[in-house]
């Protein structure tokens, strides 16, 4: 443990406040958008990242000074903010509240991949154009950049305050946030106000991005995701939707993180964010400084299930499809094709799991990859450390995923709709962080290698075709398992809970129990898929089951139709196989996923086969 002198303590304080300033800028933007549009904007991190790239282009390619750079960043981000409002929110206002949230996820996928395609996924060096001199101020060393960040943040916050408090437009914005319909009746153009809010939020986020790029001297496409989560955590800490709360929350988060890293090491950096995120959501959802009012009212059907009649897939089609799948290795011996379809079957299991939890039981899960990870690690470790036979370790891995994952998700059961999405996302990340930091068990970043291969009754399964059949067989077993549950009273009870929690409770449905049962059953299927993956690859690390996998699985489910089992399989095949079959598209697959998600939410919310 490093020794804390007064000097290092003061330095850490400055570091924490500087980082906290930037978190505050991101959090203010999220707070404004949440206030006006009641939306958790998942694309906000992408705006911040794009702001950083625009700044980087201006400074390092064009050699501009900082003044014009900030102006260009502000203009570009404002335009992007307006575009996001148009694509992600305007037309979805009348849909379930989760629809715009999903749309912003789609937009963020697309934007992140676009930047990757243009500038490569590698970090780009962003040297600060400011002098490197540091002044000592009362024993604390402060650099020019530290000072600039403080000045810009404080100026932006002051300008925002003045705008909200003293201009007519600012009044209109606050009025819209308080009561949209009343503001509209008083002649406020609420759509224009909403666009303006997105623009202002995007400018703040983009400027934050440039400054963080200079502070850490690099920019990279994936910086968006972490920033977005930090912004949420800061925002929640201060009270969702509150601008002063966002500032205080941002500064607090910066300080907690900096001191935490100094105490425990830098791999713990993100853990604090997620623990705060979940802790605040569960224990004090109004935030530290929020008034003790209830959370903003949510629509009664808290999920994204449109009224629709599902397409009934005739039995002969299902059986025909299955026969074709079984015969595929005889039709084509192309190992590449078989690998793609093996992957599709494993993804289909993830999609089944998500469709059960999110589609049938109505719990919007963005953390389902956490179940894959637990299943994968548990099975691999049981086989490696304890020498368990594969059949047993696969099942045990799945069971551990079901039990442990459900236990971790338990605190989320009291939340609804958007908050469930946010909290499950956080839980997925916490699982990832635990894997990263529990080195004694998981080997940390190095991951587990030499995982015993797949085998059955002692016979190793290492050829492409047998692996393909094994994966297919597991999918079929999982689907039968789920089908059986759907036909029992459980399927009915889950769907009733999804439709109306209040009415379900009034008829004796204890929500926690049935939410837990959904997560147990879904977690088992996901865990099985994760365990299989671990043995198939013989190597896994904390990035094998990244958070994007959860969202990809969710996109498959929405594509096929929420709660629709055939739809989940069709969605998995479509989104796994299609980008591979059109090889040039493979690099842009997340762009495709994002656009598909956006288009679905907008034009066919019930998916291809309809919700069940």
């Amino acid at each position, binding site marked *: 443990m490093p020794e804390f002198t007064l000097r290092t303590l003061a330095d850490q304080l400055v570091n924490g406040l500087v980082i906290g300033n930037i978190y505050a800028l991101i959090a203010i933007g999220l707070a404004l958008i949440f206030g006006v549009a009641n939306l958790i904007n998942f694309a906000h991190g992408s705006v911040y990242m794009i702001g950083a790239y625009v700044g980087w282009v201006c400074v390092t390619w064009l050699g501009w000074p900082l003044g014009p750079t900030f102006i260009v960043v502000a203009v570009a981000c404002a335009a992007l903010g307006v575009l996001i409002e148009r694509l992600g929110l305007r037309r979805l206002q009348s849909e379930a509240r989760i629809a715009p949230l999903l749309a912003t996820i789609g937009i963020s996928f697309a934007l992140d991949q676009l930047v990757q395609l243009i500038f490569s996924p590698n970090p780009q060096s962003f040297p600060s154009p400011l002098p490197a001199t540091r002044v000592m101020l009362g024993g604390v060393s402060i650099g020019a950049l530290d000072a600039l960040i403080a000045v810009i943040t404080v100026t932006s916050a002051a300008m925002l305050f003045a705008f909200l408090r003293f201009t007519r437009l600012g009044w209109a914005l606050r009025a819209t946030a308080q009561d949209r319909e009343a503001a509209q009746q008083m002649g406020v153009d609420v759509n224009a106000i909403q666009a303006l809010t997105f623009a202002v939020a995007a400018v703040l986020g983009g400027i934050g991005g440039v400054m963080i790029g200079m502070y850490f001297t690099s920019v990279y496409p994936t910086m968006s995701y972490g920033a977005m989560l930090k912004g949420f955590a800061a925002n929640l800490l201060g009270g969702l939707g509150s601008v002063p709360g966002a500032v205080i929350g941002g500064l607090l988060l910066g300080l907690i993180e900096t001191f935490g890293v100094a105490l425990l090491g830098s791999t713990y950096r993100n853990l604090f964010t997620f623990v705060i995120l979940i802790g605040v959501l569960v224990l004090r959802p109004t935030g530290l400084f929020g008034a003790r009012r209830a959370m903003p009212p949510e629509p009664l059907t808290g999920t994204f299930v449109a009224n629709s009649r599902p397409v009934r897939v005739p039995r002969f089609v299902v059986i025909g499809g299955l026969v074709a799948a079984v015969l595929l290795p005889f039709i084509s011996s192309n190992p590449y094709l078989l690998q793609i379809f093996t992957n599709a079957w494993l993804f289909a299991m993830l999609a089944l799991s998500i469709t059960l939890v999110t589609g049938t039981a109505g719990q919007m899960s963005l953390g389902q990859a956490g179940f894959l990870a637990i299943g994968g690690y548990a099975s691999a470790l049981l086989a490696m450390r304890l020498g368990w036979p594969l059949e047993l370790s696969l099942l045990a891995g799945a069971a551990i995923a079901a039990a442990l994952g459900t236990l971790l998700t338990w605190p989320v059961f009291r939340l609804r709709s958007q908050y469930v999405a946010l909290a499950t996302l956080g839980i997925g990340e916490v699982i990832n962080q635990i894997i990263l930091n529990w080195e004694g068990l998981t080997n940390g970043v190095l991951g587990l290698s030499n995982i015993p291969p797949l085998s059955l009754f002692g016979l190793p399964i290492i050829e492409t075709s047998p692996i393909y059949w094994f994966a297919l067989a597991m999918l079929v077993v999982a689907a039968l398992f789920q089908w059986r549950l759907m036909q029992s009273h459980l399927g009915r*009870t889950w*769907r009733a809970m999804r439709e109306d929690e209040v*009415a379900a*409770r009034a*008829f004796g449905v204890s929500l926690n129990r049935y939410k837990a049962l959904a997560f147990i059953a879904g977690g088992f299927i996901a865990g099985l898929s994760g365990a299989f993956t671990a043995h198939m690859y013989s190597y896994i690390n904390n990035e094998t089951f990244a958070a994007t996998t959860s969202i990809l699985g969710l996109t498959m489910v929405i594509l096929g139709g929420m709660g629709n089992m055939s739809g989940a399989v069709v969605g998995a095949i479509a989104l796994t196989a299609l980008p591979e079959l059109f090889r040039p598209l493979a690099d842009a697959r997340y762009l495709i996923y994002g656009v598909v998600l956006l288009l679905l939410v907008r034009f066919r919310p019930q998916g291809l086969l309809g919700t069940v």
Partner: protein
Amino acid sequence: MALLEVRGLRREFGGVVAVDGVDLTVEAGETVSVIGPNGAGKTTLFNLITGLDKPDAGQVLLDGRPITGWPPEKLAALGIARTFQHGRVFGNLSVLDNVLIGAHTRQAAHRLRAPVLGMIAELALALVQPPAWREEHRRLREEARDVLALFGDRLLPRADQPAYSLSYANRRRTEIARALALRPRLLLLDEPTAGMNPTETAEMLEFIRSLKGRGLTLLLIEHKLSLVMQLSDRVIVMDDGRKIAEGVPQSVRNDPKVIEAYLGHKRPGSDARDVQPAGEDDRRAVLAQTRPSSVS
């Protein structure tokens, strides 16, 4: 001993007292109506009795046993069923499945209460589906169809349609069918005829009368006073969160406090019989204008 007893129930919402020291009893087999102008606290009272909201003070007793503040799922298991003011059917479930949810607490799986093991057992039961489970499943489905049949050919031909596709009146009927499937000891109906036309209202009147004839205990919120007068054994009048009158329909009808509550002031020279329907019409007019489009 009364089946339901409510003593001094009170609920405040940020300074507004929605229910203010209400007492009431319902004997087994009795039909008691709660009437009063909008905002009198009737639905809040229902929510407090059924556990959807918790009182700030006061007691609720079922068979003399305190059940104050119990969660709704536990109260449902004790035999308290309700319908909702604005209708809350499960839109994407079939009509039959809606009714079967009503029978949720009567399933064997519901008796597996042990914290973790009960859940595992329920999962196993749903997976294995042993003969006893199948028999129960079949029996409950049959029973649900019988409940639907109580509404003649209103619901039965639509048993497999999703509930969102039903007409408004049929959704209200589905809700009542769902509540009946619980085999309630006490049934709370919150404005069962709201939004129904005169024919449908008359049909509902007969239906509730038949429930009463079968010995069901009913607590009813209703605005259509003629229906209240015909059905109720006793009427409780609420205004501004308080109980202002109670008694047999005839005596309540002529109570000056009731007339005042409905009209805001006494109209000199007018006779109670003229006032009553006028009051109802006023209320209807107000209702038509102010009923919120969203469920509150």
